[in-house]
């Protein structure tokens, strides 16, 4: 395939993001534009649908079609859009709260319907926009240390959740590694079905500036011998290692 002549900047509009300096969402935005450029997508052939949250502002900064929609609802909107305009590259994106609190009910059904779209979740383990409450992905230790509500409730495991619901493509990445994020996004977009990318991200304001450093210390590539076509291995990995980065599962029949 010819390398694309497009530049990432061509997918950005003039708006300056209102995110806090150092927020993980900046890097996600960059990797979105890099992935689009790498794939040589036409701007008017991309639609990014988000929910509500700091992370969900992302479509507003892209020179593509986009919708900053309703809290928890990007998936049904994206599914409807994809059915009406199958030729579009459709990306649903959301924060961990949008995806795994108010929007959780839609995930199994979107997976069942298996539309050809990418669901990219920026998981900073906190409700950033509403000023730092614990989200369903917040670890108990975090909630205890920060006196956040819900300390007794164990966190959701996003990767295990989507696997258990039958997602055909499941990957994990992190906002501190733009190259990796771009790679995962490209693979997810290329996957012909529902593709889920779990992006470990950082909220500098409510997780602190050291959070990214701590994350960098924990994440690591998936071990070389992992076969993403092996569903059992994917489950084992999902259960045991919340910091392994890479493609965790890619259904063989795709």
């Amino acid at each position: 395939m010819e390398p694309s002549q497009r530049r990432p900047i061509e997918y950005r509009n003039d708006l300056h993001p209102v995110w806090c300096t150092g927020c993980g969402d900046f890097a996600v935005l960059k990797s979105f534009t890099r992935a689009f450029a790498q794939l040589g997508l036409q701007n008017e052939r991309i639609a990014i649908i988000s929910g509500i949250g700091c992370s969900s502002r992302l479509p507003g900064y892209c020179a593509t079609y986009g919708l900053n929609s309703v809290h928890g609802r990007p998936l049904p909107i994206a599914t409807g859009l994809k059915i009406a305009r199958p030729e579009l590259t459709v990306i649903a994106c959301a924060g961990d709260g949008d995806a795994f609190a108010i929007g959780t009910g839609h995930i199994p059904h979107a997976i069942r319907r298996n539309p050809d779209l990418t669901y990219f979740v920026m998981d900073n383990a906190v409700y950033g926009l509403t000023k730092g409450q614990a989200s369903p992905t917040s670890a108990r230790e975090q909630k205890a240390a920060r006196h956040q509500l819900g300390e007794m409730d164990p966190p959701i495991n996003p990767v295990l959740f989507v696997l258990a619901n039958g997602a055909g493509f499941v990957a994990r990445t992190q906002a501190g590694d733009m190259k990796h994020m771009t790679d995962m996004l490209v693979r997810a977009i290329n996957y012909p079905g529902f593709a889920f990318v779990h992006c470990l991200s950082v909220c500098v304001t409510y997780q602190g500036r050291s959070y990214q450093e701590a994350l960098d210390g924990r994440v690591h590539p998936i071990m070389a011998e992992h076969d993403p076509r092996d569903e059992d291995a994917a489950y084992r990995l999902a259960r045991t290692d919340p910091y392994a980065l890479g493609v965790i599962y890619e259904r063989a029949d795709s």
Partner: protein
Amino acid sequence: MSMPAIETIGGARYPDAIDLAKVRDAHRPLATERKVVEADGNTAAAYACLQMWRAVCFAGFPITPSTKWLEVVTDTVARGTVGCKRVKLMEAEHAVADYLAGAAAACRDLIVATATSSVGLDHMTESTRSLGASGLGNILLINVYRAAANYPLCIEGDPSDALAHRDDGWIQICCRGVQQIYDVVLQAPCIGMHPEVLTPVMPGYYGIKDSHRGSRLILEPDHAIEAFHDRWIRPSQWPGLINGDTALGNCVTSQFFQGFKIDQRSRMERVLTLLPRIGADFEETFSRPGLEFVEPLSWPVDNTVDLAIVAMGPDAGTAAALAPEIGKECGCKIGVLAAQLLTPFPHAQYAARLAHVKAVLVVNQAHHAGHGHLTHEIAQACYPLPKPPAVVSCFAGMGGATVSDATWLAMVRHAVTASRRGERLPRPVIAHEGRIIWPN
């Protein structure tokens, strides 16, 4: 050994299912004596909830501008200073409403509370519409006004959320200012849990304009609040819903449906006789105005008003402050009424006030398909009067916009002109930043 069940027409009641004496004993006061603190509206509402011994179950989901209520409740409960209360962070507002329904149904003698706003309230709709008629008067839903999801979103104080939920069947009370927020929340369960009312209450106040504005707040001692509540809230004689033959989501034939609605309406009507009594007791106990149907903010005792302004929330206070000056400029005597009880709407009380005025300027701060939520009610109130005044409808302050002095002047001028033309219910206008901006 547990006490035997008591049969009621609503099903079996288990009087010792929850040991209320223990709950009462476990309460720790936030204030042992009257004290003055600095607080914003959300904090005032949270303090009021925390001071009621019956309120042990809280739930929430963050949304601007009501989030601080949840934060204050959470922090205070976590410090353990108010005894053993429980706060749950739910996954969405519909879950909050259902959680409260479950807790409230389990024990009608306990108060369960939350606060929300705008799309948060919308997200609860399926449950709030059932709860309104359910008989669970022990649910307190604090609604911090913010424009509802009527496109576009806007986080400032606009009562379109509360007003869009007027048919949910809740008692809705609009508060103005930090002290009134605290006082109304304290009185709300007395009316909602009254055996002849049994209807949940939705006190509300303007987001940002009141939720975030700091002011002096008198906190009453918990023991005084307890004594006041005990005069109005008696042990329930009804089983929790889960024991009875009614339930949320139950389905009846149209024949029975009428009975439910008649009952709901009768209970709502009872609010109109009870509210002033509770308000009077509050005033006598705490030496501050208690619940009222409508606040006469600037109203001469002899009722000699040419133009009455009916408005809601903190902007009504501005209107009252400006009334003498604007009245002089426009050559009319202005009186200002701030709406307090929104649902049920006290038509008779407005009719009595407005019987001799020449015109009423109704200021609606929420989008409405017709002349405005308040305008419709005021027009209905005035309809039976022998000489009904012109009812002039303005929309101003939508999306929480400031209603400036110049905007008030523009609206009064418009009302005077329109009423002089002899129109009874002129076409509504939108006023903003000192001008009538629609129709232009």
